[in-house]
């Protein structure tokens, strides 16, 4: 094979295979350029950067939708639709397509939300949207990474703009502090992650996930080189640290409350939804990428080795999930600031999601259908979580604009002045608790049912049982602090010095909140449609 054919082969592969399946990311990248151009060129000054970004997001959503259709049509084939892009750096499959669509759709909704809530203002809009678009691009890559180098790059690509976003409220001490904490913490986590990657690469001689899995299965399966296994597990743990940082999993969650409280509610919405979705997708990607190999190639010792690898990962993820969920819910108890409360709520929900990841990992390689359902549950959870949390932060933003405060105490007696918002808050918070008939219940139910499935049919059943019990107890615990907010809103008397202007019958902000809250109810009752897409996401796990 000479250089020429290699180059032409690469070009051919890039142009014919990779780029068409990469168009969502391309559209986002082009939007970034457009927004920047519009800011720089005086001719395009009149263009509202938010609208440009929204256009890009809509295009990306459209392409994401079209890609999902492609996947949907080919799913019945064995193994689903799987295409490695750019020489194996990325992978395009049903999970990529679904998460990308989710991210793109979220982006569009999110831009609308920021336009309504008024942060950023027009002057800062271009910077803001460039950062948001850039971070989303990174998140898309997280969802499709197939190579540890890409994993690292994608995580950094998603994180670095987030650091800047956290400090976006210039001149606010809390915001600057939050940004600094986030950046330093992120740098630390990234360093450890990179160290872990280098350890893994050093032992296995590759960063391509499927190749790593095969090699790891071989090494562990033979079980002779205990030193290598030690290094491998250390490297894996360090990789997990980077991921846990993105997921804000305990004990790497410290940044989360400070950043959420310091940054604007809009930033919180972005971090808690998009970042979480991408991180969960990446976690699934890594668990399946490192824990399984493509159809049936694994046999004998390799398979046994892979089972051990999975066992290790499931335990790490599962124990972290238990800790994350419990700590998140407990720490939310005494919070007085709504954003900080939501930050802990985000931590807790990361815990629930990681329970699902653990269940999926436990079922992988044992019960393909069960693993698919577990991933589907995760995707469904992310889909509903998008609306729940976006709505929650939108409510915080709307109330901030109205009350000039984000303290829970300032919401006292809100039901008498803004009953509509209180109803929406009730819907959203009750859904976050996970009570029927709202979307959060269905999502949690699906996660727990995959745990039950894992209890029944996997070697990790004791752990799964613990997780299930902890998850159930946590749901009960979480009732308290969510309902406390509602109690303040409804039962407490209106403060004398309330500056609230009476809300009109219909406002743009109210409409937005309603538009976000309605799906929460809808998906709680008519959830089969969304679940259809979620099942599609799960179908990659063969």
């Amino acid at each position, binding site marked *: 094979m000479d250089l020429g054919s290699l180059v032409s082969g690469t070009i051919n592969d890039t142009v014919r295979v990779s780029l068409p399946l990469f168009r969502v990311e391309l559209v986002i990248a082009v939007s970034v350029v457009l927004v920047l151009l519009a800011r720089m060129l005086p001719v395009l000054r009149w263009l509202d950067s938010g609208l440009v970004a929204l256009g890009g997001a809509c295009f990306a959503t459209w392409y994401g939708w079209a890609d999902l259709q492609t996947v949907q049509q080919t799913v019945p084939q064995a193994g689903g639709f799987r295409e490695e892009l750019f020489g194996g750096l990325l992978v395009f499959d049903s999970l990529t397509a679904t998460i990308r669509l989710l991210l793109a759709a979220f982006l569009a909704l999110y831009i609308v939300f920021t336009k309504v809530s008024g942060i950023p203002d027009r002057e800062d809009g271009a910077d803001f949207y460039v950062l948001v678009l850039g971070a989303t691009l990174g998140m898309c890559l997280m969802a499709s990474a197939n190579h540890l180098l890409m994993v690292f790059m994608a995580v950094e690509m998603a994180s670095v703009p987030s650091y800047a976003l956290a400090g976006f409220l210039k001149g606010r001490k809390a915001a600057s502090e939050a940004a600094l904490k986030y950046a330093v913490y992120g740098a630390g986590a990234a360093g450890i992650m990179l160290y872990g990657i280098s350890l893994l690469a050093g032992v296995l001689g590759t960063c391509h996930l499927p190749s790593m899995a095969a090699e790891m299965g071989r090494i562990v399966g033979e079980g002779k080189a205990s030193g290598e296994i*030690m290094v491998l*597990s250390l490297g894996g743990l360090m990789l997990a640290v980077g991921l846990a940082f993105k997921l804000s999993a305990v004990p790497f969650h410290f*940044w989360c409350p400070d950043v959420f409280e310091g940054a604007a509610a809009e930033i919180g919405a972005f971090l808690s939804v998009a970042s979480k979705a991408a991180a969960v997708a990446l976690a699934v990607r890594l668990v399946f990428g490192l824990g399984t190999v493509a159809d049936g190639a694994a046999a004998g010792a390799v398979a046994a080795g892979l089972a051990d690898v999975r066992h290790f990962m499931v335990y790490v993820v599962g124990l972290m999930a238990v800790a994350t969920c419990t*700590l998140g819910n407990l*720490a939310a108890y005494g919070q007085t600031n709504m954003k900080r409360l939501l930050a802990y709520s985000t931590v807790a929900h990361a815990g629930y999601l990681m329970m699902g990841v653990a269940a999926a990992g436990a079922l992988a390689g044992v019960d393909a259908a069960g693993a698919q359902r577990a991933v589907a549950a995760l995707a469904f959870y992310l889909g509903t979580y998008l609306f729940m949390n976006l709505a929650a932060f939108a409510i915080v933003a709307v109330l901030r604009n109205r009350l000039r405060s984000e303290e829970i105490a300032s919401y006292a007696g809100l039901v008498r002045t803004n009953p509509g918002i209180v109803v929406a808050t009730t819907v959203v918070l009750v859904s976050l608790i996970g009570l029927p008939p709202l979307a959060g219940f269905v999502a949690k139910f699906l996660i727990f049912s995959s745990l039950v499935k894992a209890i029944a049919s996997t070697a990790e059943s004791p752990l799964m049982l613990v997780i299930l019990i902890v998850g159930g107890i946590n749901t009960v615990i979480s009732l308290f602090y969510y309902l406390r907010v509602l109690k303040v809103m409804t039962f407490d008397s209106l403060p004398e010095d309330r500056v609230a202007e009476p809300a009109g019958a219909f406002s743009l902000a109210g409409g937005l909140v309603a538009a976000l809250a309605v799906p929460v109810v809808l998906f709680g009752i008519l959830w089969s449609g969304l679940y259809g897409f979620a099942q599609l996401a799960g179908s990659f796990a063969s």
Partner: protein
Amino acid sequence: MDPAAQLPLLLGLAWLTPLASFVAILFFGPRMGSHGRNAAWVATAAIVTSLVLSLTAFVVWLGAHPVTAPAHGHGDSHGEAHAADHAAAAADGEHAAFRQVALRAGDAAALPGADGHGDSDHNAEAHGEPHLPAAYAGDWYTLYEGGRLKLSIGWYIDALTVLMFVVVTFIATCIHVYASGYMHDELHDVTDHEVTLADGHHLHRPGRFPRFFQALSLFCFSMLGIVIAGNLAMVFIFWELVGICSWFLIGFYYERKSASTAANKAFIVNRVGDFGMLIGLMALWGALGTLSFADSTAVGPDGHETVTPGLFSLFRPAETGHALQVPDGMVTAAAASEVATIAADHAATPADSASEIAARVPGWREAGLGRWLLVIAGLGIFCGCVGKSAQFPLFVWLPDAMEGPTPVSALVHSATMVAAGVYLVGRFFPVLSPDVLLVIAYAGAITLFIAATIALVANDIKRVLAYSTVSQLGYMMLALGVGGWVAGLFHLVTHAFFKSLLFLCSGSVIHACHTNDMRKMGGLIKVMPWTGYTMLVGCLAIIGAGIPFVIGFSGYYSKDSILAQALSFSQANPSHTILYWAVAGGAFITAFYMFRLWFMTFMGTPRDHHVAEHAHESPNVMVTPLVVLAVLAVAAGWALPGGLGVANLLEQARPAGTAEGMTGGFAFGQRLVFPAEHESHVGAVHVTATTTAFATALAGVVLAAAMYLWRLISPAGVATVFRPVYAFLAGRWYFDELYDVLFVKPTLGIARLASGIDRGLIDKLIDGLAWTARRLAGLDAWIDKTVVDGLVNATANATWNAGLKMRAVQTGRLRQYVMFIVVGTVALFVLASLAFRSSVAG
């Protein structure tokens, strides 16, 4: 121009327009002008539209079916022949069918003998084609169809339907116009002086102008629904709808206890009648499987037409020359055990059993099987009519119903709804057996007599009219009961005009005097001449005034024909002569109390100056309907040259087979002869009847004038002389008291007993259980508070403290955070290597 297509369309629209008005006022009533002023316009516009459509339908009908004067081809000579007819009919013996009385003397020989065939031949030979009423029937919408049950919204349109539409919409129009003036008090806040609240003040409430017209529109829709209905199920639906409208309207001033009681009384008493009606409906449907009046033709998928016979042709099939017979369905239902035996014998071949049953049916019918079902069906339907048309013994609700606003009394409780019972008996007439007809006749006679006597002594102007209504409804029932189909329905139409006129006049008087008590009136003719003279017209019409054999008010014609038919019936059945005397006596009493009313109200000198000073003529919007109705009260009985008149129009709708008389009957153990109606037009009968009517009416008027105008006889003196009778009548025959003792008290007693058992026994038991439960709950609460809550609180405290401790870790110091990364990683590693030494690292 196909009337079969046009008539349902026109009348259907006329029927639905008031519904549209009802819906519009229901939803937008209060927003129609200030206090819903324009609701009157909406309702009136709707009913005027209905009137125009009905009139158009009337014209279409006349175009398709020209009305001609009946050809009295039989001449007077044939009167004598009847004896022979009746004799021959009676000689038939206990026959299967109710024999028709032959028309001509010569036909008597051709009457079917005991062999029981040849009926249809006989009819065809004697009269050419047998008389069939022109009618259109069909379904708009099928509510439900399954098995034998078919419930549909359909139409049955004949001359009677068209006539009733015109009458109802016309009177309703007049009353809508009148009411828009009469109800103007409701346009602003009302202080009801008849309702005293607990604090001693009178009730003050907002006006309910739109609500009145809303109910009125709904009533018109329901009433027209009864008239157009194509089957008994639909009749029943709208029957109940008019009932509920009546309840709304009687209870319009529901804050008055009397009004709400009267509304409930009307509704409950009607339920009693409707219970009987339901039994009748069940008997019909259970035995025959259809409630539709007319035959219906269904075109099957193969283009083959199947005719499903309706009630009329089941009871009076063409094969028997439309003579009433017990339908096959009722015969087989009564012979259920034999049918079961036959079916068991031919279990293998169902077709054989069907044919054998068909062959045995005539025999069973000869044996009288199924007759009871026929009687039950007829009496059941009549029961409903007794309730709705306020016949004895259920007439007690109607006088109380006068608590409603006067326009309601005029429309609902005199002209239309209460006439619905008479209408239904008329519509159902072909199905009624001689026994049932006799019951109807006697019920009508008793009603007319009782009500008339009570009216003699009543002092409330509206109550006099109410009892007069009951009495006149009795007339109609009696007329139908003695076979006078046209006479009864003719009186229904004329009565609708003059009674609504009378009520509107009384309303005008009440409006002016603010009292119902005639003893406080007097001399009003001077201040309200329009009302006075139009009311005089109404009085003359109701007593049937006229120049004998020349011309008269509308009541003259209809009452004469009732009298004539009653006379004709009592001549044929000497044992029932009392029916004739009831009619004649009733005519006398009617004349007396109507003129007593008129004299007391309008003549003489004012008896209460307070009332007289405030009296004034009513506004034009109220007087105009009076004049219009007065014109019709005079002219409704006339026939135009060429024969166009109510009676001849009704003749077109005469049910098949009823033009001839009927004989039969078994329940009373004797033969009854129902003479054909045209026989009452025969000279001897007619003259006697007319003379009697004139004489009795004149006598009544003269007596009334002697007592109340010329004051030759003192009413008080008469009352003293006949004290017991007077008290009995003034007490309204003590029917209310009787029912109170017989039904209301026992019911309340049972209710009290039940409530006593409930309170004394069941409640005590439940209280005891509750007490036990409370004790147990107290114990439980104690355990809960000390043990469970203690645990829970301890857990909660622990959780809360844990939460606070978690917060404590969150110091906010960046250096510590970064430290935690390292610590966390190491901790994770240590944990992992400890936990998995065996499995992975080992």
